[in-house]
């Protein structure tokens, strides 16, 4: 459902904005649903910066955007994961050299019910909770009793298996060859994960920092047993100290030219980076915003 709104908004914006006096350049932008909100916000903000350029944003997933960029139907692809080698080969075979831009970072927070006393977790502990063969299945295995969770069972909340969030969390926490435990509740959206954790004392979930609410707790994560425990915040995602933060990408077909180049330059400028910050993601570099 969500992905239709930007389309409608854009159609309206495109009609309302074009006064027919001059030919407007249209940049086609497609891909990741994680980046959709931000991409839409960029497109809207850019309309006030350069009225001669319209940016048409659609979702559909990282893979969809990348294949559209390879086929030349979009100018810019949004992706919440790096392009795969097979995709880069396919692009080259099609005469396209993909150029990668890191446009920001998304910290994946581990979410717990607000009554859960846990304040710190190590990556190893998270792996023992989520990973296939991991020994932790009860809260008492971590040495805590969660109020309201009489059965002591850890209720795993995860994502459907083709979401970029699912893939990145697996890489970052479970390792390249790791697998999730079967039996997790696989939600269909970042927000659904947080909603379920909010209502379920026994639950643990993971989702983008942008989806945090006041009624869930986010433990700090340490990458090693004895290293500092880092809370998921925009600042720790920017400086790279938070262990489960992923870069967000945009890809263009070849070095961007003309209107596309101006757009990419603006996204990476402080003005563009403040837009991503407003949406709850981290800028790719430290940025002062008012």
């Amino acid at each position: 459902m969500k992905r239709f709104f930007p389309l409608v908004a854009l159609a309206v914006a495109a009609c309302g904005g074009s006064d027919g006096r001059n030919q407007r350049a249209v940049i086609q932008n497609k891909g990741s649903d994680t980046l959709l909100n931000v991409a839409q916000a960029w497109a809207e903000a850019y309309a006030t910066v350069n009225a001669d350029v319209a940016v048409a944003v659609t979702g559909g997933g990282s893979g969809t955007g990348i294949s559209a960029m390879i086929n030349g139907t979009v100018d810019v692809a949004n992706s919440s994961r790096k392009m795969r080698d097979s995709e880069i080969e396919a692009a080259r075979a099609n005469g396209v050299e993909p150029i990668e831009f890191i446009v920001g970072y998304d910290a994946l927070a581990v979410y717990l019910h607000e009554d859960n006393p846990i304040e710190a977790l190590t990556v190893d502990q998270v792996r023992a909770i989520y990973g296939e063969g991991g020994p932790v299945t009860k809260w008492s295995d971590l040495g805590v009793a969660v109020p309201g969770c009489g059965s002591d069972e850890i209720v795993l909340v995860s994502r459907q298996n083709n979401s970029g969030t699912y893939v990145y969390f697996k890489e970052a926490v479970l390792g390249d060859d790791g697998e999730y435990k079967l039996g997790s509740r696989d939600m269909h959206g970042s927000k659904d994960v947080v909603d379920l954790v909010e209502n379920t004392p026994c639950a643990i979930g993971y989702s983008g920092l942008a989806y945090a609410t006041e009624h869930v707790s986010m433990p700090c994560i340490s990458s090693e047993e004895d290293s500092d425990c880092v809370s998921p915040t925009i600042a720790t995602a920017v400086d790279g100290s938070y262990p489960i933060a992923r870069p967000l990408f945009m890809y263009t077909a070849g070095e961007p030219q003309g209107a596309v180049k101006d757009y990419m330059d603006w996204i990476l400028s402080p003005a563009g980076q403040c837009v991503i910050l407003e949406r709850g993601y981290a800028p790719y570099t430290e940025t002062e915003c008012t």
Partner: protein
Amino acid sequence: MDRRDLAWYVDKTAQWVIFAGGISAIVFIVGIFIFITKEGLDFVLGPLNLGEFFTSIAWRPTSNNPTYGALALIVGTASVTGFAMLLSVPLSLGAALFIAEFATGKTREVLKVLVEMLAAIPSVVWGFVGMSIMHPLIMRIFDVPLGLGVLNAGLILGLMAAPIMTTIAEDALKAVPDAYREAAEALGATRWEVIFKVVIPASRNGLLAAVLLGVGRGFGETMAVLMASGHAINIPTSPFDSVRALTATIASELGDTVRGGDHWGSLFTLGILLFVVTFVINLTADIVVRGIRKK
């Protein structure tokens, strides 16, 4: 004489439109079957390992070493549908008996309208009820860690299937000729004896068809099950365990899948399985109903 005036053309057009309408169902069902088979065929003939598909629970289509075990999904669908039928068969047969045999006048009309209204509630609304009302309720009443599971989805699905079953069962009971009832009463049978020894045996094919159509409804339901079942790959050992249905798996995974890939094909294979099972259920129901007409 065959005169080709306006009326003749109207007549021919009407004939053609009605014919097209009549065979369209066949065209669509064959078309859908060809489509899902075509999309799934490469996978079925290629990477699919039937033994793994039916005996393993490891559904990991996006892993580096993908495995396509659908056992948990099949068991999930079966357990939710089974639980729903446990609830809705007695409920809807009871309701049908009451409406057909006991209720009279206004009560009867109001009940019929209400039952039909129940059938009109969109499935996403049922799913929402499961997620936001039943989930916390089940957690509180039974003191279990999560309220999304077989019990929740089964209750919701039972309530969704009940109106259809009630309506069809009621029609079957009404189709029993009054002469049967009068004859039984003339022999001194009480009201219960009339119903249990005459009306129900006489309409049992129709009642069975009602139940089978309810099962078909439960099997194919997607949205409400996706929301209320917990959507977890798991063989349930208690009614509170989360499960995942075949339909819900297709709905949640198809959107972001690369067209034509193995994952895509595996989801269409689930579709073929669903199609075959619902087809068999509906065909059985149809044959059973035909059985009544011949009598």
